[in-house]
């Protein structure tokens, strides 16, 4: 049985350091298997999040050799020889060891104005595959938040979290804006409060997406065009000057009609 040395960051909000663990490694194992072996033997209090261990829940995101990855989908035999470094996601505050406080993302989710569909016909809505397909790509998102972690707008500038939703929520907005049933208009919100303009299309988010969602090409760029069209269209601009358009705020729009 082979052995491997894992350099795992241990600590909390007050600081911490790397600890080395040399443990067994079997054929076909992923990083999470080895982390679990450390927990089961040397360090039962090593904190890490995980749920499905199948790449479906997005709980076990961490930075492996400096790159955001799902620990459950990273095979040990794909990593270079030598010690493997595992650190928590950098963009979020540390709770303990590999566990970070990702509440930023849940706060963003609360700001999203919900789908506003027309009343449902008795036998359900009619939608065609071509129309749902675009949204389906974005709904593959498993909320691992690695795109948020790697996005330099918030990774390098903590203060931007106040006015920047991040790639995960840009695909959520894109999904809603492209939803065949939606009647809500979130364009001003996206431009003014969600900071879409801060994204300068470096595609770091697309690169790390474990679901291979084309975040930049299929969501952010079309969303930018849509927002820009709405805002800089001269006719629309004149219209707004004359009659200030009623803007739906997130909280207004979140109130759904009674079902």
């Amino acid at each position, binding site marked *: 049985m082979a052995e491997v040395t894992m350099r795992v960051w241990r600590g909390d909000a007050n600081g911490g350091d790397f600890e080395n663990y040399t443990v067994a490694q079997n054929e076909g194992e992923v990083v999470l298997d080895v982390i679990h072996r450390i927990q089961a033997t040397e360090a039962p209090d090593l904190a890490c999040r995980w749920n499905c261990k199948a790449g479906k829940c997005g*709980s076990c995101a961490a930075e492996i050799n400096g790159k955001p990855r799902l620990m459950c989908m990273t095979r040990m035999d794909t990593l270079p020889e030598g010690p493997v470094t595992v650190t928590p996601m950098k963009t979020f505050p540390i709770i303990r060891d590999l566990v970070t406080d990702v509440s930023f993302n849940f706060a963003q989710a609360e700001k*999203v104005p919900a789908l506003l569909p027309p009343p449902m016909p008795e036998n359900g809505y009619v939608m065609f595959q071509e129309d749902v397909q675009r949204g389906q790509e974005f709904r593959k998102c498993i909320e691992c938040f690695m795109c948020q972690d790697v996005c330099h707008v918030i990774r390098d500038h903590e203060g931007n979290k106040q006015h920047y939703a991040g790639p995960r929520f840009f695909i959520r907005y894109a999904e809603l804006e492209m939803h065949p049933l939606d009647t809500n208009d979130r364009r001003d919100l996206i431009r003014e409060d969600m900071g879409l303009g801060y994204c300068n299309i470096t595609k770091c988010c697309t690169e790390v997406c474990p679901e291979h969602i084309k975040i930049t090409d299929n969501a952010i760029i079309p969303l930018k065009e849509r927002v820009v069209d709405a805002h800089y269209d001269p006719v629309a601009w004149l219209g707004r000057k004359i009659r200030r358009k009623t803007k739906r705020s997130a909280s207004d729009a979140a109130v759904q009609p009674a079902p």
Partner: protein
Amino acid sequence: MTYEHHDYDVLIIGAGGAGLRAAIEAKQRGLKVGIVTKSLLGKAHTVMAEGGMAAAMGNVYPEDNWMVHFRDTMRGGKYLNNYRMAELHAKEAPARVLELEQWGALFDRTKDGKILQRDFGGHRYARLAHVGDRTGLELIRTLQQKVVSMGTDVFMECKILKLVHDDQGKVAGCVAYRRPTGEFITFGAKAIILATGGAGKSWKFTSNSWEGTGDGHAMALWAGAKLIDMECIQFHPTGMVWPLSVRGLLVTEGVRGDGGVLRNSEGKRFMFDYVAPMFRAETAESEEEADKWYDDHTAGRRPPELLPRDEVARAINAEVKAGRGTPHGGVYLDIASRRSAEFIRRRLPSMYHQFMELAGVDITTESMEIGPTCHYIMGGVQVVADTAATAAPGLFAAGEVAGGMHGANRLGGNSLSDLIVFGKRAGAGAAEYIEAGDVAGPMNRDQIDAAVAEALAPFDREAGENPYDIQRDLQEMMQANVGIIRTQSELDYARGQLDTFTERVKNIKVKGGRAYNPGWNLATDLPAMITVCKAVTIGAILRKESRGGHTREDFPGADPEFGKFNFAHSTNGGNWDSEIVTAESPLLPMPEELKALLEEEK
């Protein structure tokens, strides 16, 4: 000591499909609702469901209706089901699926723009609404987004330790701890809905995540509710067997619904040799006949690969035992030779991805090696079908933690629909219970203090055992002795071992502090795991027959006498190490018109 405390009308434990659907219902009825989950929101086991949710909408086969779905569910469950649950489920599932689209779900479509439905084992018609092979994710995200848009309090990474009564014995709240800080927290509630999911983590080869420890089953039992059918455990026929690190990881039944077949090491499509008499009339006799069926269900009878899960799992087990297994002890699941690469990638994207990345297998060109894996517990908390009420006043249960709906064996696709049908009913049941006014008073302080003291004890011991060692040994013991095929001597051995495990748990030593300490969290899981294992083992000992997810080597046939009741467990004392008392609980008598539905097809 005082703890952080919150009061709700309805407190929901668990944030999977059932819990979230219950929350929506209770919120819509104007109640103050709190949700507690031991993980982050949106990570519950529901996300792992792949194939779809069964609902007789008739979008693909207009012949389909609730009566056929009811019949399929009862037959799949080997008639051990709570018929009323199966009836409500079959009738209400279509409306529950449709309403998801109001909240943003995007299902795959038929050519005329309706929700597309796919074939699954045991369902007579193509009936599963789905989104590729990630239907569970779609369900949880849709419900999660709806719950968030309604402004619901969600306590994430908060683990409930024990339910607490008032002085009259009604369920009045619970004690929990926040995982990030290790601080205790109490919740008072007029009604509590358990939606805690399953218990499969006590087996070695399992599709369940760390969360499937049966906390809800155990807490309900301790609080005075009853558990039924605990011996009925579903071993999903197609879990990955290689590499070892992903052993148990699920391969959706959709692979077989879309044309995949099972072959042994000789290349033989062996399922034709394992068609039980009950299913012969509607199962194809030859490969030619079976292959016609995929395109037109009226041109041939169903392929035997689509028999209910218990039948397929037993057949695979038998092939491997007869020496016709794969190098890693499974059989082959082959879709590569039967469908185009493009078709496979479009219909089964997650499976393609999963095998490519984890096993280095391209399922568009190679066969998958698969074998049975512990997947689902049919048994659970005994409930009143219409309201989800348990025997403990103030306590409700929905989803996998509830028992009765699936009888002795669950059909694929009936779980996601179970969550939304009975999640909604639990929310309504709790609301009606509160409206009736006779709700619990304040929580009994002694019970709170006892639960906290019990949780902290593993820190205080001078020395003791590592909880991970106990968990590993428990999983190995249950896999070996209370697995897919059971026999008296092994079950007796397991029952004795579980008493030894009880003593070992009382001697756990936890290292480190209270903040986000997985070792401590496991120490708090083990009492529930052992309680559930005891109920499973006792049920398996008593049920001296084979039925659905309970197979006895020493009693290979079904015995009609055992088809008349469930084994119902309660405790003598309400502590985790209290004695479990088991009695026969007769099945609900079925109305004649429903009986007629079952008779027609026999």
